[in-house]
Protein backbone atom coordinates (compact mmCIF):
# COMPACT_ATOMS: atom_id res chain seq x y z
CA UNK A 1 0.00 0.00 0.00
CA UNK A 2 1.34 3.38 -0.87
CA UNK A 3 2.31 5.62 1.97
CA UNK A 4 -0.36 8.17 1.06
CA UNK A 5 -3.06 5.58 1.34
CA UNK A 6 -1.64 4.31 4.62
CA UNK A 7 -1.80 7.79 6.02
CA UNK A 8 -5.36 8.31 4.90
CA UNK A 9 -6.29 4.98 6.39
CA UNK A 10 -4.65 5.99 9.65
CA UNK A 11 -6.49 9.29 9.62
CA UNK A 12 -9.80 7.55 9.13
CA UNK A 13 -9.20 4.77 11.59
CA UNK A 14 -7.83 6.81 14.40
CA UNK A 15 -9.82 10.02 14.33
CA UNK A 16 -13.53 9.34 14.26
CA UNK A 17 -14.03 12.16 16.76
CA UNK A 18 -12.61 14.63 14.27
CA UNK A 19 -15.62 14.03 12.12
CA UNK A 20 -17.80 15.97 14.52
CA UNK A 21 -15.30 18.64 15.49
CA UNK A 22 -14.64 22.17 14.34
CA UNK A 23 -11.68 22.52 12.09
CA UNK A 24 -10.62 21.65 8.58
CA UNK A 25 -8.51 19.06 6.87
CA UNK A 26 -5.74 20.71 4.90
CA UNK A 27 -4.13 19.09 1.88
CA UNK A 28 -1.37 18.78 0.86
CA UNK A 29 1.38 18.81 3.49
CA UNK A 30 3.32 21.51 1.68
CA UNK A 31 2.86 23.67 -1.40
CA UNK A 32 5.48 23.93 -4.14
CA UNK A 33 5.10 26.69 -6.74
CA UNK A 34 7.36 27.06 -9.74
CA UNK A 35 8.18 30.26 -11.55
CA UNK A 36 6.60 29.04 -14.79
CA UNK A 37 3.07 28.67 -13.41
CA UNK A 38 3.34 31.03 -10.44
CA UNK A 39 0.32 29.40 -8.87
CA UNK A 40 -0.67 26.58 -6.59
CA UNK A 41 -3.60 25.46 -4.53
CA UNK A 42 -4.66 23.76 -1.37
CA UNK A 43 -7.83 21.85 -0.65
CA UNK A 44 -9.78 22.25 2.56
CA UNK A 45 -12.42 19.91 3.83
CA UNK A 46 -14.78 20.47 6.72
CA UNK A 47 -15.60 17.09 8.27
CA UNK A 48 -17.81 18.57 10.94
CA UNK A 49 -21.51 19.07 11.29
CA UNK A 50 -21.33 22.85 11.48
CA UNK A 51 -19.98 25.49 9.09
CA UNK A 52 -16.42 26.59 9.72
CA UNK A 53 -15.07 30.08 9.13
CA UNK A 54 -11.67 29.82 7.47
CA UNK A 55 -9.03 32.49 7.02
CA UNK A 56 -5.89 32.08 4.93
CA UNK A 57 -2.77 34.18 5.40
CA UNK A 58 1.00 33.99 5.03
CA UNK A 59 3.90 34.21 7.42
CA UNK A 60 7.58 33.39 7.39
CA UNK A 61 9.60 30.81 9.26
CA UNK A 62 11.59 27.61 8.92
CA UNK A 63 12.70 24.83 11.26
CA UNK A 64 15.56 25.51 13.64
CA UNK A 65 16.96 23.66 16.62
CA UNK A 66 18.03 24.93 20.01
CA UNK A 67 21.04 23.81 22.03
CA UNK A 68 19.12 20.79 23.33
CA UNK A 69 18.19 19.67 19.83
CA UNK A 70 14.53 20.60 20.15
CA UNK A 71 13.13 21.54 16.76
CA UNK A 72 10.68 24.38 16.23
CA UNK A 73 9.45 26.94 13.76
CA UNK A 74 8.85 30.51 14.75
CA UNK A 75 6.41 32.05 12.33
CA UNK A 76 6.53 35.84 11.92
CA UNK A 77 4.23 38.09 9.95
CA UNK A 78 7.11 39.26 7.81
CA UNK A 79 10.61 38.03 7.04
CA UNK A 80 13.96 39.58 7.94
CA UNK A 81 15.41 41.58 5.06
CA UNK A 82 18.15 39.09 4.25
CA UNK A 83 15.91 36.06 3.98
CA UNK A 84 14.62 34.61 0.69
CA UNK A 85 10.99 35.23 1.53
CA UNK A 86 7.98 34.91 -0.72
CA UNK A 87 5.64 36.18 1.96
CA UNK A 88 5.18 39.67 0.53
CA UNK A 89 4.20 38.60 -2.97
CA UNK A 90 1.98 35.60 -2.37
CA UNK A 91 -1.77 35.93 -2.34
CA UNK A 92 -4.56 33.50 -1.51
CA UNK A 93 -8.01 33.44 -3.10
CA UNK A 94 -10.28 33.49 -1.24
CA UNK A 95 -8.63 34.67 1.94
CA UNK A 96 -11.77 34.25 3.98
CA UNK A 97 -14.49 31.69 3.39
CA UNK A 98 -17.14 29.75 5.23
CA UNK A 99 -17.08 26.04 4.47
CA UNK A 100 -20.30 24.17 5.04
CA UNK A 101 -20.57 20.84 6.74
CA UNK A 102 -18.75 18.10 4.86
CA UNK A 103 -17.89 20.45 2.03
CA UNK A 104 -14.63 21.09 0.22
CA UNK A 105 -13.06 24.36 -0.79
CA UNK A 106 -10.09 25.02 -3.04
CA UNK A 107 -7.84 27.93 -2.15
CA UNK A 108 -5.78 29.29 -5.04
CA UNK A 109 -2.33 30.65 -4.34
CA UNK A 110 -0.96 33.18 -6.78
CA UNK A 111 2.58 34.57 -6.82
CA UNK A 112 3.51 38.01 -8.11
CA UNK A 113 7.27 38.07 -7.69
CA UNK A 114 9.14 41.28 -8.37
CA UNK A 115 10.66 41.76 -11.80
CA UNK A 116 14.18 40.48 -12.06
CA UNK A 117 13.81 38.00 -9.24
CA UNK A 118 17.10 36.07 -9.10
CA UNK A 119 17.04 32.31 -9.52
CA UNK A 120 16.57 30.59 -6.21
CA UNK A 121 14.14 29.23 -3.72
CA UNK A 122 11.82 31.50 -1.75
CA UNK A 123 9.94 30.49 1.37
CA UNK A 124 6.74 31.28 3.21
CA UNK A 125 4.34 29.64 5.61
CA UNK A 126 0.67 29.26 4.84
CA UNK A 127 -1.58 29.78 7.85
CA UNK A 128 -5.06 28.29 7.71
CA UNK A 129 -7.25 29.43 10.58
CA UNK A 130 -10.53 27.66 11.32
CA UNK A 131 -13.18 28.74 13.72
CA UNK A 132 -16.48 27.06 14.36
CA UNK A 133 -19.70 28.75 15.24
CA UNK A 134 -20.00 30.32 18.66
CA UNK A 135 -21.01 27.74 21.22
CA UNK A 136 -23.39 29.13 23.82
CA UNK A 137 -22.30 28.93 27.42
CA UNK A 138 -24.75 27.01 29.54
CA UNK A 139 -26.77 28.98 32.05
CA UNK A 140 -29.30 31.77 32.08
CA UNK A 141 -28.00 35.32 32.40
CA UNK A 142 -30.74 36.49 34.75
CA UNK A 143 -30.37 33.64 37.22
CA UNK A 144 -27.66 35.42 39.18
CA UNK A 145 -25.14 32.71 38.31
CA UNK A 146 -21.73 33.22 36.75
CA UNK A 147 -20.97 30.85 33.92
CA UNK A 148 -17.66 30.57 32.11
CA UNK A 149 -16.69 28.92 28.83
CA UNK A 150 -13.97 29.37 26.23
CA UNK A 151 -14.27 28.57 22.56
CA UNK A 152 -11.55 27.05 20.42
CA UNK A 153 -9.95 28.18 17.21
CA UNK A 154 -7.26 26.25 15.37
CA UNK A 155 -4.54 27.24 12.93
CA UNK A 156 -2.66 24.89 10.66
CA UNK A 157 0.68 26.10 9.34
CA UNK A 158 2.36 24.43 6.36
CA UNK A 159 5.33 25.28 4.18
CA UNK A 160 5.13 27.11 0.86
CA UNK A 161 8.13 26.93 -1.46
CA UNK A 162 8.54 29.04 -4.59
CA UNK A 163 11.25 27.96 -7.03
CA UNK A 164 12.85 29.78 -9.92
CA UNK A 165 15.55 28.39 -12.14
CA UNK A 166 17.63 25.28 -11.85
CA UNK A 167 18.18 24.47 -8.18
CA UNK A 168 20.15 21.93 -6.26
CA UNK A 169 20.28 20.70 -2.72
CA UNK A 170 22.30 18.41 -0.53
CA UNK A 171 23.45 17.83 3.01
CA UNK A 172 26.69 17.73 4.88
CA UNK A 173 26.29 15.40 7.82
CA UNK A 174 28.71 15.98 10.67
CA UNK A 175 29.48 13.19 13.08
CA UNK A 176 26.33 12.13 14.93
CA UNK A 177 26.43 11.45 18.66
CA UNK A 178 24.46 9.02 20.80
CA UNK A 179 23.84 8.66 24.52
CA UNK A 180 21.86 6.02 26.34
CA UNK A 181 19.84 6.77 29.46
CA UNK A 182 16.47 5.78 30.85
CA UNK A 183 15.91 3.07 28.24
CA UNK A 184 16.24 5.64 25.47
CA UNK A 185 18.99 6.41 22.98
CA UNK A 186 19.29 10.13 22.30
CA UNK A 187 20.86 10.82 18.93
CA UNK A 188 22.03 14.20 17.70
CA UNK A 189 22.29 14.68 13.94
CA UNK A 190 24.16 17.88 12.97
CA UNK A 191 23.40 18.82 9.36
CA UNK A 192 24.29 21.66 7.06
CA UNK A 193 22.47 22.20 3.82
CA UNK A 194 24.40 22.62 0.61
CA UNK A 195 23.26 23.83 -2.79
CA UNK A 196 20.71 26.50 -3.56
CA UNK A 197 17.51 25.07 -2.09
CA UNK A 198 16.24 23.62 1.17
CA UNK A 199 16.81 19.94 1.74
CA UNK A 200 13.47 18.18 2.00
CA UNK A 201 13.72 14.54 2.89
CA UNK A 202 13.58 11.88 5.55
CA UNK A 203 15.87 10.98 8.43
CA UNK A 204 16.05 7.32 9.42
CA UNK A 205 17.83 6.27 12.57
CA UNK A 206 18.43 2.65 13.59
CA UNK A 207 19.95 1.29 16.76
CA UNK A 208 21.50 -2.18 16.41
CA UNK A 209 23.53 -4.39 18.70
CA UNK A 210 26.92 -5.94 17.94
CA UNK A 211 25.23 -8.75 15.99
CA UNK A 212 23.20 -6.33 13.93
CA UNK A 213 19.90 -7.04 15.68
CA UNK A 214 17.56 -4.08 15.60
CA UNK A 215 16.90 -2.50 19.02
CA UNK A 216 14.98 0.56 17.96
CA UNK A 217 14.41 2.89 15.05
CA UNK A 218 12.89 6.18 14.09
CA UNK A 219 11.87 7.80 10.83
CA UNK A 220 10.74 11.35 10.40
CA UNK A 221 10.23 14.05 7.82
CA UNK A 222 13.03 16.54 7.51
CA UNK A 223 13.42 20.07 6.19
CA UNK A 224 16.88 21.60 6.43
CA UNK A 225 16.82 25.23 5.32
CA UNK A 226 20.28 26.21 6.60
CA UNK A 227 21.51 24.11 9.50
CA UNK A 228 19.78 21.73 11.85
CA UNK A 229 20.98 19.66 14.78
CA UNK A 230 17.92 17.76 15.99
CA UNK A 231 17.78 15.33 18.87
CA UNK A 232 15.99 12.09 18.09
CA UNK A 233 14.95 9.98 21.07
CA UNK A 234 14.61 6.28 20.34
CA UNK A 235 13.04 4.08 23.01
CA UNK A 236 14.97 0.83 23.13
CA UNK A 237 14.12 -0.58 26.54
CA UNK A 238 16.77 -1.99 28.88
CA UNK A 239 20.00 -2.76 27.02
CA UNK A 240 22.41 -5.46 28.10
CA UNK A 241 26.04 -4.41 28.57
CA UNK A 242 27.83 -4.20 25.24
CA UNK A 243 28.53 -2.07 22.24
CA UNK A 244 25.75 -0.75 20.04
CA UNK A 245 25.70 1.15 16.80
CA UNK A 246 23.45 3.99 15.70
CA UNK A 247 23.07 4.26 11.93
CA UNK A 248 21.77 7.54 10.50
CA UNK A 249 20.54 7.69 6.91
CA UNK A 250 19.30 10.87 5.26
CA UNK A 251 17.56 10.77 1.91
CA UNK A 252 15.24 12.86 -0.20
CA UNK A 253 12.63 10.13 -0.13
CA UNK A 254 9.32 11.70 0.91
CA UNK A 255 6.25 9.61 0.25
CA UNK A 256 3.89 12.34 1.42
CA UNK A 257 5.01 14.84 -1.23
CA UNK A 258 4.69 14.78 -5.00
CA UNK A 259 7.90 13.37 -6.52
CA UNK A 260 8.42 16.49 -8.62
CA UNK A 261 8.41 18.63 -5.50
CA UNK A 262 11.41 16.91 -3.97
CA UNK A 263 14.80 17.94 -5.27
CA UNK A 264 17.01 14.87 -5.58
CA UNK A 265 20.26 14.57 -3.67
CA UNK A 266 22.66 11.82 -2.81
CA UNK A 267 21.80 10.03 0.44
CA UNK A 268 23.98 10.82 3.43
CA UNK A 269 24.87 8.11 5.91
CA UNK A 270 26.94 7.91 9.04
CA UNK A 271 27.08 5.87 12.22
CA UNK A 272 28.27 6.13 15.78
CA UNK A 273 28.86 3.54 18.47
CA UNK A 274 28.08 3.70 22.14
CA UNK A 275 28.74 1.34 24.99
CA UNK A 276 26.45 0.19 27.76
CA UNK A 277 28.36 -0.92 30.85
Amino acid sequence: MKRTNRMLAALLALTPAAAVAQGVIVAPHAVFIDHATRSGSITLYNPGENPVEVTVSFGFGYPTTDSAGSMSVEVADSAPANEPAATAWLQAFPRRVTIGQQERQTIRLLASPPAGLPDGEYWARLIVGAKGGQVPVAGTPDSGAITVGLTLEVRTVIAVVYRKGSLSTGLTLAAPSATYANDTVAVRIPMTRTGTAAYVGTARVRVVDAKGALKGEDERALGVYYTLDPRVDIPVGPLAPGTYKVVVTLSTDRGDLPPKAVLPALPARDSVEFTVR
Partner: protein
Amino acid sequence: MTRTLLLGLALLALPRALPAQSVTGIRNLTFGTVIPGVPTTVLQNDAVRSGQFRIAGVIVRNVTIGFTLPTVMNGPLGATMPITFLNNSAGFTTVFQGNTPFNPNTPYNETVWFNATITLGGRVNPTPTQRSGNYTANIVMTVIFL
Protein backbone atom coordinates in the same frame (compact mmCIF):
# COMPACT_ATOMS: atom_id res chain seq x y z
CA MET B 1 -19.06 5.19 11.39
CA THR B 2 -21.10 6.50 8.47
CA ARG B 3 -19.61 9.96 8.87
CA THR B 4 -16.14 8.49 9.09
CA LEU B 5 -16.84 6.66 5.85
CA LEU B 6 -18.00 9.90 4.25
CA LEU B 7 -14.84 11.59 5.44
CA GLY B 8 -12.83 8.78 3.91
CA LEU B 9 -14.61 9.01 0.60
CA ALA B 10 -14.13 12.77 0.52
CA LEU B 11 -10.44 12.43 1.24
CA LEU B 12 -10.00 9.73 -1.35
CA ALA B 13 -11.71 12.03 -3.82
CA LEU B 14 -9.00 14.63 -3.29
CA PRO B 15 -6.62 14.98 -6.21
CA ARG B 16 -3.81 12.45 -6.37
CA ALA B 17 -0.86 13.08 -4.13
CA LEU B 18 -2.72 15.23 -1.65
CA PRO B 19 -2.08 13.69 1.73
CA ALA B 20 -3.91 15.73 4.27
CA GLN B 21 -3.50 16.79 7.85
CA SER B 22 -6.11 18.12 10.19
CA VAL B 23 -6.12 20.22 13.32
CA THR B 24 -9.50 20.32 14.99
CA GLY B 25 -11.08 21.64 18.12
CA ILE B 26 -12.98 18.80 19.72
CA ARG B 27 -14.31 20.24 22.95
CA ASN B 28 -14.50 23.73 24.43
CA LEU B 29 -12.91 24.55 27.77
CA THR B 30 -15.82 24.92 30.16
CA PHE B 31 -15.78 26.01 33.78
CA GLY B 32 -19.55 25.87 34.15
CA THR B 33 -21.03 27.82 37.04
CA VAL B 34 -18.49 29.48 39.33
CA ILE B 35 -18.95 31.14 42.72
CA PRO B 36 -17.98 34.81 43.26
CA GLY B 37 -14.71 35.06 45.14
CA VAL B 38 -13.84 31.40 44.71
CA PRO B 39 -11.15 30.52 42.17
CA THR B 40 -12.04 27.57 39.99
CA THR B 41 -9.56 25.31 38.26
CA VAL B 42 -10.13 22.88 35.43
CA LEU B 43 -7.31 20.35 35.09
CA GLN B 44 -6.03 19.57 31.61
CA ASN B 45 -6.89 15.91 32.13
CA ASP B 46 -10.47 16.65 33.18
CA ALA B 47 -12.45 14.28 30.96
CA VAL B 48 -15.46 16.55 30.69
CA ARG B 49 -14.54 20.20 31.18
CA SER B 50 -11.05 20.53 29.67
CA GLY B 51 -10.62 21.91 26.19
CA GLN B 52 -9.57 19.32 23.66
CA PHE B 53 -7.85 19.54 20.27
CA ARG B 54 -6.72 16.85 17.88
CA ILE B 55 -3.99 16.62 15.27
CA ALA B 56 -4.40 13.89 12.68
CA GLY B 57 -3.42 12.78 9.22
CA VAL B 58 0.29 12.37 9.67
CA ILE B 59 2.51 9.34 9.99
CA VAL B 60 5.37 10.87 11.92
CA ARG B 61 5.77 14.65 11.95
CA ASN B 62 7.48 17.10 14.21
CA VAL B 63 5.18 19.91 15.16
CA THR B 64 5.36 23.10 17.14
CA ILE B 65 2.22 23.75 19.15
CA GLY B 66 1.50 27.28 20.31
CA PHE B 67 -1.45 28.84 22.06
CA THR B 68 -2.84 32.35 22.00
CA LEU B 69 -4.43 32.54 25.40
CA PRO B 70 -6.67 35.19 26.91
CA THR B 71 -5.86 36.88 30.21
CA VAL B 72 -9.41 37.98 30.82
CA MET B 73 -12.83 36.88 29.73
CA ASN B 74 -15.57 39.23 28.69
CA GLY B 75 -18.90 39.22 30.44
CA PRO B 76 -22.08 41.27 30.61
CA LEU B 77 -21.99 45.09 30.46
CA GLY B 78 -18.25 45.22 29.99
CA ALA B 79 -17.43 43.10 33.01
CA THR B 80 -14.28 40.99 32.83
CA MET B 81 -12.89 38.02 34.74
CA PRO B 82 -9.21 37.06 34.97
CA ILE B 83 -8.10 33.68 33.66
CA THR B 84 -4.67 32.11 34.01
CA PHE B 85 -2.92 29.12 32.52
CA LEU B 86 -0.25 27.39 34.57
CA ASN B 87 2.87 25.63 33.36
CA ASN B 88 1.06 22.29 33.46
CA SER B 89 -2.28 23.45 32.09
CA ALA B 90 -1.90 21.60 28.79
CA GLY B 91 -1.42 17.94 27.97
CA PHE B 92 -0.17 15.99 24.96
CA THR B 93 -1.22 12.42 24.25
CA THR B 94 -0.52 10.05 21.37
CA VAL B 95 -1.11 6.39 20.81
CA PHE B 96 2.46 5.77 21.95
CA GLN B 97 2.71 8.37 24.70
CA GLY B 98 0.51 8.84 27.73
CA ASN B 99 -0.70 12.26 28.80
CA THR B 100 2.33 14.52 29.12
CA PRO B 101 1.68 17.91 30.78
CA PHE B 102 3.24 20.99 29.22
CA ASN B 103 3.16 24.73 29.54
CA PRO B 104 0.70 26.31 27.10
CA ASN B 105 2.25 29.74 27.61
CA THR B 106 5.33 28.84 25.53
CA PRO B 107 5.69 26.96 22.24
CA TYR B 108 5.81 23.21 22.70
CA ASN B 109 7.65 20.88 20.34
CA GLU B 110 6.58 17.31 19.91
CA THR B 111 6.47 14.40 17.52
CA VAL B 112 3.07 13.27 16.36
CA TRP B 113 2.65 9.60 15.50
CA PHE B 114 -0.51 9.22 13.42
CA ASN B 115 -2.50 11.55 15.66
CA ALA B 116 -2.33 13.43 18.92
CA THR B 117 -4.75 14.83 21.44
CA ILE B 118 -4.02 18.11 23.15
CA THR B 119 -5.96 19.04 26.25
CA LEU B 120 -6.14 22.38 28.00
CA GLY B 121 -7.20 23.44 31.46
CA GLY B 122 -7.03 26.75 33.27
CA ARG B 123 -7.99 28.74 36.32
CA VAL B 124 -10.52 31.55 36.67
CA ASN B 125 -10.57 34.04 39.52
CA PRO B 126 -13.98 35.65 39.95
CA THR B 127 -13.99 38.54 42.41
CA PRO B 128 -16.38 38.56 45.38
CA THR B 129 -18.41 41.19 43.57
CA GLN B 130 -18.22 39.59 40.14
CA ARG B 131 -21.17 40.58 38.00
CA SER B 132 -23.43 37.61 37.19
CA GLY B 133 -23.82 36.40 33.63
CA ASN B 134 -21.95 34.52 30.95
CA TYR B 135 -18.21 35.06 30.43
CA THR B 136 -16.47 33.95 27.27
CA ALA B 137 -13.16 34.22 25.47
CA ASN B 138 -11.40 32.60 22.54
CA ILE B 139 -8.44 30.23 22.60
CA VAL B 140 -6.32 29.78 19.49
CA MET B 141 -4.09 26.76 19.02
CA THR B 142 -1.55 26.99 16.22
CA VAL B 143 0.11 23.84 14.90
CA ILE B 144 3.15 24.34 12.72
CA PHE B 145 4.08 21.29 10.68
CA LEU B 146 7.85 21.26 10.39
